[in-house]
């Protein structure tokens, strides 16, 4: 079932148009990867979907409802959660306070909020150990877990992740990717932007390649991983083989 449907999305900064009418879909229980070189417009795409940048044209439908250019907090309430690049935690607050802020929209339901936070501690046992530690003092991998948990508190239908593996040790990258797979298996739709194309194409179901503000290639992940152009541009070195 199609969860997110984007058609003809145009975005620009000042006089420069960054996205020239792109289209993509994400279904429930599906990991969709968005690949592309730096400056191709991947982060801009995610920020526009979650209402942080205004769209100049096109439309965005979430679960059958138009969310184009709604304010970011309304889009979050409708079920799209965004884990931003570089995590953007509230560094001087504890892990638990960060999670509570993620549940800001669940006001006046303390019991429900507590239940959901406890569910996050089940998903990320490491965070239970660290619940009273300041987020800014966590290691990079733990911070990424807090960022994902914070996004999950609102029980989104679609989780949008911007470079979750950036700056993380190989072992930690693997555990983050394992969690993403688990969320997919629970029926969540996942839109994933990554530089780590090799590992991303392994866990993704489908992928889009964004270049110069347009979708250049799309298809299922396994096929794209075999594509010559993808290998040359994003898998590095493999073109020689």
């Amino acid at each position, binding site marked *: 079932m199609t969860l997110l449907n984007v058609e003809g999305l145009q975005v620009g900064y000042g006089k420069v148009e960054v996205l020239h009418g792109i289209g993509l879909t994400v279904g429930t229980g599906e990991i969709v990867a968005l690949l592309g*070189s*730096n*400056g191709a417009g991947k982060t801009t795409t995610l920020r526009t979907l979650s209402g942080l940048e205004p769209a100049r044209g096109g439309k965005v439908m979430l679960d059958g409802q138009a969310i184009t250019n709604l304010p970011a907090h309304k889009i979050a309430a409708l079920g799209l959660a965004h884990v931003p690049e*570089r995590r953007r935690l509230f560094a001087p607050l504890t892990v638990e306070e960060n999670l509570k802020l993620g549940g800001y929209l669940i006001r006046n339901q303390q019991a429900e909020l507590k239940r959901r936070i406890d569910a996050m501690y089940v998903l990320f046992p490491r965070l239970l150990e660290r619940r009273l530690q300041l987020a800014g003092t*966590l*290691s*990079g*991998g*733990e911070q990424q877990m807090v960022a994902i948990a914070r996004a999950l508190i609102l029980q989104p239908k679609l989780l949008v992740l911007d*470079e979750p593996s*950036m*700056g*993380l*040790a*190989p*072992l*930690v990258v*693997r555990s983050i*990717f394992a969690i993403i797979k688990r969320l997919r298996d629970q029926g969540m739709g996942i839109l994933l932007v990554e*530089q780590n*194309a*090799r*590992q991303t194409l*392994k866990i993704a179901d489908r992928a889009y390649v964004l270049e110069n503000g347009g979708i250049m290639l799309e298809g299922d992940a396994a096929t794209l991983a075999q594509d010559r152009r993808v290998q*040359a*541009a*994003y*898998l*590095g*070195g493999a073109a*020689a083989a």
Partner: protein
Amino acid sequence: MQGLLNRPISAAGIVALAVAAILPFFCHNYIVDVALTIVTYGILALGLNIVVGYAGLLDLGYAAFFAIGAYTTALLETLLNFNFWETIPFSLLFAGISGIIIGYPTLRLRSDYLAIVTLGFGEIVRIIATNLDITGGPNGIYGINPANLLGHDLTSPKSVYALGLVFLVCVLILVIRLGRSRLGRAWTSLREDENAAEAVGVPTLRVKMLAYVIGALIGGLGGSLFAARFGTIDPSSFTYAQSVSILIIVVLGGRGSIPGVLLGAIIIAGLPEALRFLNLWREFVFAIALILLMLVRPQGLWPARLRHIAPPSAEDAHATPHAEVAEQIAETTAGEPDVLLEARDVSRVFGGLKAVSNVNFTVHRGEILSIIGPNGAGKTTVFNCLTGVIPPSAGAIIWNGKPLAKLAPHKVVARGLARTFQGIRLFDNLTVFENVLVGMDHRFHVSLASEMLALSYARRETHLHHAAGRNWLEFVGLTAQAGLRAGDLPYGDQRRLEIARALAGQPQLLLLDEPAAGMNPTEKQSLMGLIRRIRDLGTTVLLIEHDMLLVMGVSDRVIVMDRGQVIASGSPSEVQSNPRVIEAYLGAGEDEDEDSLAAVSEGAVA
């Protein structure tokens, strides 16, 4: 000065000054008087613009320096019978000294504290003037003699105006030259990112002091002019509201923009006069007009533009002697020991938590050494200890055989250790070329004064620097982007520019903190090539990185850290097969994801 004439804005500015100069010949005295007020505010605002606009320090008590200049002239003239000209050096001296007294303790603080301290300072000066007998208390000082030139008293509005205009032109030339000097560049880098500025060799505390003191000097000069103009001064001219008016001029005109500041002075000092016909409504309309202007032009009426310094042409740069970096590095390192750096039992404790404990390692000259390890293992803390950002709690860092005592980061840079940051920290609002120039400014030999006077030997050194800077851009492949705003570069180019900026200081050791983060495999390939070329220049490279393809492909040796300790070191292949490393960092190959390790062997073959 030649740069002044070849730009349309400079030409327009000269025309505007010419119009201002002939104003007295066809205008009524009232207009000339208003124009003199504008000129006075213009001088003050140009001074405050150095502090607020160039260096980005908020000063809420600038009128204090204005007061100190005015009272110095008034007191010396009335008590000691000095003439106006003799009082000026003392005005400058006292304003400058108070700038140092206020600036020295407070400029170490965060900028919002500085704002509060300056606010207090402004009030203290006003209250002292109101309460001392010698300053005439609330009534102020009367009977200040006008300035005298060649036996003529400058008493008529037109002659005082002419004097004010001469002062304004002098201040203008000073601030324009300062803005284009390496000091101006250092101020801008400070405003953009203080930590990054320190890390590329800018002595940030001294540079802030200079901004504050030069601002104070100009304020003092404005005060002397003010005293001579009116013949009487009292504390009501030096209130907090006065400080705010000057600040509004700078913000309204455009922080850091000289034409903007002058335009701001015309509006703040001139508009209330133009609105006199409104009588009671005047202040109200003026306030509304200011709010509207700020809403329409939040960046200021005439925002500062990018300072453009054109890099020399390729032939010119290549033909410049001493542009051969590799030779220069070889010269400086000849006869130095083979062990470039040694960390001996280095520990760092943060509030009871041992981030780094008893770390020992050596860096040999000419090698590429990588530090890997899980997040939070203490790798960046080691970098920060090496570069003076934080002092180690225990242990020693031996550099070229001598201990590196606790030096400020800019001094460590001068010793030859340069670094890049985990998150990119460029000076976004400088051009690409100027970013590189900031990185090499600490190597200048000529004095600032000779640079500002454009003496021939200073121009020669500037030219050498520009040629070297251009060659560094060429080294990382950014020559074509030299004139762009650094913040507008795509991500991969920003990474390369950060490396060029660090290299421009000609370090013996370059520390790269996760340079490949956020790069795709193609960019990582070219980064590997770049790191090898840096080593081939003779610069030793110490690398923190998580990308194993890159680390294993490029490193001569690898050090592995976990929980603040070194758990392994050796060649890439030794480290990769070390069971402790696999357990702590690389991960056991229990599922198919092990391409990172598989790829490493591919990379080694390639």
